[in-house]
């Protein structure tokens, strides 16, 4: 068997793969499911999935073990990519360190350097007013206490109920982690809705 045969198989494979890919691409209703909260500095979801090399270096670098590796059928095309389960372990923004470790170790441009903590957009906290204690007659300020930017990302309205400022919230999930209700009243929504990728 010659090299010509191998090279032919390679070229034929590229043609076939491109064709199948184009066909899959054209089918409607294809979404990036499930949506995951990505580590800080992540690009838009589509770009992040294209760029992430699935090496897990951010997972081992994270000093708080906030970043986890998504391995399993349920993660679909995100298999092997990093995510943050904010309810369990939020992103502490590498407190006590002079840099964000995950961004520093990323070998690709999947996690991009951020100017400061305020420009991170991991996701967006959203209050579920039907469950939130403060909205249901109990005094509770857990999320406000936990928030790294209190009175900015989480403010109180005139009835002492927390309100998320969408332009300031970085999606670190400290509020989600601190929320005393079960399930959480302030889940962090992944950044998928904000991404401008072609496949969202």
């Amino acid at each position, binding site marked *: 068997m010659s090299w010509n045969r191998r090279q032919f198989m390679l070229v034929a494979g590229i043609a076939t*793969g*491109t064709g199948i890919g184009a066909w899959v691409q054209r089918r409607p209703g294809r979404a990036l499911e499930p949506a995951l909260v990505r580590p800080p500095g992540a690009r838009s979801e589509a770009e992040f999935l294209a760029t*992430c090399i699935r090496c897990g*270096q951010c997972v081992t670098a994270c000093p708080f073990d906030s970043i986890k590796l998504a*391995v399993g059928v349920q993660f679909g*095309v995100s298999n092997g990519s990093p995510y943050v389960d904010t309810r369990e372990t939020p992103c502490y923004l590498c407190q006590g360190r002079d840099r964000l470790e995950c961004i520093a170790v990323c070998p*690709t441009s999947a996690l991009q350097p951020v100017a400061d903590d305020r420009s991170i957009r991991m996701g967006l906290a959203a209050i579920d007013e039907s469950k939130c204690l403060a909205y249901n007659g109990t005094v509770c300020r857990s999320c406000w206490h936990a928030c790294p930017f209190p009175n900015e990302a989480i403010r109180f309205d005139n009835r002492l109920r927390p309100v998320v400022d969408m332009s300031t919230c970085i999606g670190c999930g400290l509020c989600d982690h601190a929320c005393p209700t079960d399930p959480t009243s302030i889940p962090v929504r992944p950044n998928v809705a904000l991404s401008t990728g072609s496949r969202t």
Partner: protein
Amino acid sequence: MSAKPRLFRWVYARRLVATVFVLLLLFGRFDWFPWFKGATTATLVAHWIPLVDPLAGADVLLASRQIDTALVMGMVILLAFAVLYGPVFCGWVCPLGLVLDINQSLRRFLMRGTRVRRIPVSSSSAQWRYAILGITLGLTITLRLPIFQTVSPINLLAWAIVHGAFAGIIVVGALALLEWAFPRFWCRVVCPLGALYSLVGRWGLLRVRINPTEAGKTPCRQCTLHCPMGVRVMEDYSLAHRLSVDHPECTRCGDCVDACPRPVLRLGIKRCHQWYIQGTKSHHDCELMDVMETETGDGASAISQESGLVQLKLQVPKSRTIHKPLDKGDVPGL
């Protein structure tokens, strides 16, 4: 007939290297071991040397449609190694290769004496590896996802080792089970990473060298039977008067060398790379120079005389000749 017991075998060296790699991956998860971080796709060695799996890097470059200098630098190191020495990663480093290799040894041990027929996966089916490589690259281009990296059993195994994500072990286990019926199915027929390494490593200097004066004296076929990639070492190379096993699927694992009961095969470095050969010296001359060196201890002077070929001819049995015109298709660079 099995190989005679020997103190040194390439299989020990090979498995030691692969085990060290697995241990490095395993230690990499701990903070007290900062010298090796990452999985099989990309690693950072000693804080500053980035190593990027060429296929994973190519996938990311194609999916993101951007040139990432740091990524390319990491790929170049491994690519350069593969160009120089051939697809050594497959035989010596790949953690999945280690698992499947031990799986085969286990199978051979448990099935000993029962004369279970090997269901052959002929080496010509290796062409599917190149088709699968092409398909994954094509899918990556259009879907903008490094699709092979999300499903690769090599990565699944590495994630299990590094991060304790054992979901992927099911796939690796199923593969190991499948290989009891189809020996080395993944490496021979599927693995696109192996195909890429074979493509770039076709002129690699590390080869299984054949001693022409010993070849064919006792055609026991142990080399062919032991080749994990299904290369017909005896039929196509040793009996065909070739000087080295130039099969693209050869991973330099050394199993044929271990199996050979006579000093016919050895794992060695060729003298000159195809890329360095100047117009005066042909590929075949280069090979001859190496052979002469092992025969006489002075290859350069032997080949410098025009009579180099003649000298060698005198040493081999009369019925055979070294200077057989080589099959153009199969020998790289001819």
